[in-house]
């Protein structure tokens, strides 16, 4: 065993990261021991199969990753703030932008969205949990362990450094001999399997577990968006799984799928990656559209305009998302015909997306718009995302893309799509559904401060990049010369990045402040909501609904409040719930070690871990666990207590 390859050398920043990781770990361990919370942590969180708690864990992990990815972003902006900066060297910069991309897309945006869907979807469709609660826990732990595996790469062995798209042959063992891209293939694989299982779980949940009366065309828009998203996941992620497996074979076992010699084909990797990669964009954008639809309807006090065309536009977007992958490499020399085809399919996506924008605007029209924090993010999304959208159409034009490709113009474009499209949406959804989960709202005044910092700084950071691209600055350059003239706009962009950081600090401070001082909600419906999740208590009881509601409109809770019709008709009966289990967590830990050992080609331990996984799967397959019942009396008592009546 050669210990040298575990070490990462030279950089004071890396030693700093090592020390802070060590201190944080020690702090957590000491804290848990001091407050005697190990049992609590194990019983209530690590072994939970409750969709709400799993959702909360997803969101906590996503916030941590947002911090990590954000620090990466700040380091990149600082390094490029002025010509010939010496803050990071080339290798370190390459690792930082690679992990920034991977973390923000796969370990921040996706889990944040999956977290929100975990918390909200069963509530919105009037169900007691997802279809497969235990599978849900496995999904989470696989995602989490994949994320941790990628994160330790920074201090153990070195991070991937070939860009988040890891184009071959650059990512092959020949040009990237460190273990960084081994981490890439294994960390993404492990969390990708988790995501794939999430996809299956939520399709079944939404198709099979809706409350009586909720037909497909009566589902809330967020539920629709999540259904479509999960269908995309199920079709797109197997491609990633296969591509990553081939990558692993190339890097660990000497196969030649994507290498330069023996008929390996680098272009094949690019195709496989983007056949997954482009739908992936819609996996994070479509649920965002769903979140915005809910928030706009709630805060303009109107039903969603053009519901049917909203649904169909999402279906069309999801179909088109599989037909546009080659627009990521128009410059690969496919010729005019192929490029024209992909240009047209790509531009076609603008049509259904435009339909959505106009439907939102017409939902607002004749409404009564109140500017709460979640609504501000939603309203900021429309104009900013539209810039992202129209520049997307510009990039879709193959000829013009010969000039935009690989430049900062592209970087500006996709941040204009993903930040208002996905990040604003999850922040908006976070503020919107926070009181549902925790029973109190985040402070509106502090929230608005954070919003203005974030919204304005975002534009200051990314708008200059359009011009940098047209000036000829390519992405992923760790430095540039004075004469290039890129300096001033990059400095402006760095200033914007600092503003964004301030905004996020205020946002986090708001969570702290509101936890201590915000008044507690009593009725579970702080925003005067329209859909079923507001019809139950906050915080939500373990069984979600004491009685499954009956649905006969698209905004059932709103209808019942307006017309004073009852939502619940049945009597309270005993409720069946699944038991907690520690096995998903243990499985995740073994997967982590399997990944780690494979990264370093430590075959014997890897085989042991692999056998461990098979044993775990066998044990879980043959286990009989029928769950437990909460008696009708206990449910009634809980309900009374939650209503604030004394038992």
């Amino acid at each position, binding site marked *: 065993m050669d210990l040298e390859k575990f070490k990462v050398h030279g950089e004071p920043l890396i030693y700093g990261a090592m020390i802070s990781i060590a201190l944080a770990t020690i702090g957590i361990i000491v804290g848990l021991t001091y407050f005697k919370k190990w049992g609590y942590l194990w019983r209530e969180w690590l072994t939970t199969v409750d969709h709400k708690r799993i959702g909360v864990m997803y969101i906590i992990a996503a916030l941590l990753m947002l911090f990590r990815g954000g620090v990466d972003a700040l380091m990149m902006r600082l390094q490029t703030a002025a010509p010939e900066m010496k803050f990071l060297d080339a290798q370190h910069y390459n690792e930082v932008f690679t992990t920034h991309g991977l973390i923000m897309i796969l370990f921040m945006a996706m889990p944040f969205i999956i977290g929100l869907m975990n918390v909200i979807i069963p509530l919105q469709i009037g169900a007691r949990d997802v279809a497969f609660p235990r599978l849900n826990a496995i999904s989470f732990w696989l995602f989490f362990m994949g994320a941790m595996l990628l994160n330790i790469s920074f201090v153990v062995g070195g991070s991937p450094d070939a860009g988040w798209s890891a184009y071959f042959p650059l990512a092959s063992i020949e040009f990237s001999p460190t273990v960084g891209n081994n981490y890439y293939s294994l960390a993404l694989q492990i969390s990708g399997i988790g995501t794939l299982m999430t996809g299956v779980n939520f399709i079944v949940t939404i198709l099979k577990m809706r409350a009586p009366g909720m037909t497909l065309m009566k589902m809330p828009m967020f539920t629709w968006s999540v259904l479509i998203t999960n269908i995309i996941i199920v079709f797109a992620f197997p491609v990633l799984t296969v591509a990553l497996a081939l990558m692993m074979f190339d890097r660990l076992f000497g196969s030649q799928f994507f290498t330069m010699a023996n008929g390996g084909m680098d272009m094949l990797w690019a195709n496989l990656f983007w056949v997954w990669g482009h739908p992936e964009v819609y996996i994070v954008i479509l649920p965002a559209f769903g979140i915005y639809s809910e928030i706009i309807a709630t805060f303009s006090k109107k039903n969603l305009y053009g519901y049917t065309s909203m649904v169909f536009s999402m279906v069309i977007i999801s179909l088109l998302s599989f037909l546009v992958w080659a627009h990521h490499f128009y410059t690969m*020399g496919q010729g005019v015909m192929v490029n024209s085809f992909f*240009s047209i399919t790509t531009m076609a996506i603008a049509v259904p997306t435009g339909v959505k924008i106009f439907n939102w605007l017409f939902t607002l029209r004749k409404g009564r718009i109140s500017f709460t924090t979640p609504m501000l993010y939603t309203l900021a999304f429309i104009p900013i995302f539209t810039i992202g959208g129209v520049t997307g159409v*510009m990039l879709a034009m193959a*000829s013009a893309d010969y*000039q935009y490709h690989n*430049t900062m113009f592209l970087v500006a474009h996709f941040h204009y799509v993903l930040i208002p499209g996905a990040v604003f949406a999850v922040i908006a959804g976070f503020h919107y559904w926070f009181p549902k989960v925790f029973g109190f709202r985040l402070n509106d005044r502090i929230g608005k401060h954070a919003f203005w910092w974030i919204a304005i700084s975002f534009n200051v950071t990314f708008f200059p990049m359009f011009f940098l691209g047209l000036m000829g600055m390519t992405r992923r350059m760790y430095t540039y010369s004075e004469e290039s003239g890129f300096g001033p706009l990059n400095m402006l962009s760095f200033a914007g990045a600092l503003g964004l950081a301030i905004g996020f600090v205020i946002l986090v401070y708001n969570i702290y402040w509101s936890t201590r001082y915000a008044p507690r909600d009593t009725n579970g419906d702080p925003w005067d909501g329209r859909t079923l999740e507001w019809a139950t208590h906050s915080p939500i009881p373990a069984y979600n609904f004491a009685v499954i509601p009956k649905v006969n409109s698209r905004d059932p809770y709103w209808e019942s409040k307006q017309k004073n019709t009852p939502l619940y008709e049945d009597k309270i009966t005993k409720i069946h719930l699944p038991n907690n289990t520690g096995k998903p967590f243990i499985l995740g830990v073994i997967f982590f070690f399997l990944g780690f050992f494979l990264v370093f080609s430590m075959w014997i331990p890897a085989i042991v871990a692999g056998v461990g996984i098979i044993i775990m799967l066998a044990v879980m397959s043959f286990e009989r666990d029928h769950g437990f019942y909460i008696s009708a009396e206990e449910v009634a008592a809980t309900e009374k207590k939650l209503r604030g009546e004394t038992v």
Partner: protein
Amino acid sequence: MNKKGPLYALFLSLVLLLPGCSSLAVLNPKGPAARTLSDTIILSILVMMGVLAVVYILYVFVLVKYRAKKSNEGYIPEHEEGNKVLEAIWIIIPIIIVAFLSVVTVKSTHAVENVAEQYKDQDPLVIYASSSNWKWHFSYPEEGIETVNYVNIPVHRAVEFRLYSFGTITSFWIPQLAGQKYAMSDMLTELNLSADTVGSYMGRNSNFSGKGFAHMEFEALVMTGDEYNEWVQDVKANEPELTEDEFKGLLAAEHLGRKTYSSTHLTFSPPPGDHSEHMSGDGSEMNMENGNEDHQDNKDIHPSPEPSSQTEFDGEPNPELEEPLPSFPADESTHEGH
């Protein structure tokens, strides 16, 4: 409640776009291909400004008019299902816009993938541009010379770059002359450009290729025909030959300064075939005499008689016969375009 960011952005773009094009290399073209692209980009920006304007006006109007205020307290908006006519309008108009832009795209893509109209009758100057680590090799098979990290081309002359890589995927880009194209190890790609102004232009690899990527630039120097001929003669007379050993050394180096040789590496290290060769299984090597080789290669890329051609490029038919260097336009004084 209108957002200051986007409005500021709109303003900034107007200010910077119209007069300030000179610092924006992409919008300051010095050749027909780049000019086509620049025109396409400006056209698309104008169309998109129109789209933005519609959305922003509607947005501001709705937010101002329907915001919650004291006077409409207690107002509960009516249920509104949607409107078939309105929804049809915002489906059909975008389709028209997209259709228009599609036509523009197909036309301009076709234009820049081929030799520019005004240079169509010329026999193009073929230059092989290959990348290794973080440097560029330029081989002139007809002239029998090779350079590293700089390329000289004559003005008003169709130039056909044939791109490939000795390693990672790179992207060959001279923003003021033409859009970029990938250089890859297993396939030859082709980039047509010509310059109509004498001058020095920045060229670089735009596709991330590892540690030395940021510095992977080269100079594209456009000179008059006479100057170019003089330079070629000078190189042939005074520079050393590129031996196989010397070339191995070049490939192994990470970065290099400028180098000049009076022979090319193509003779002993042939470029990859284009796709048609892969398909037909005919991996014929092209290491023959320079002039002949060019001819041969052209046939591979544009096989004119065989209908079964797998060609990736629908280029114009090249002259079949090898001619002496085509004559340059007599007028060499067009330093500042036309």
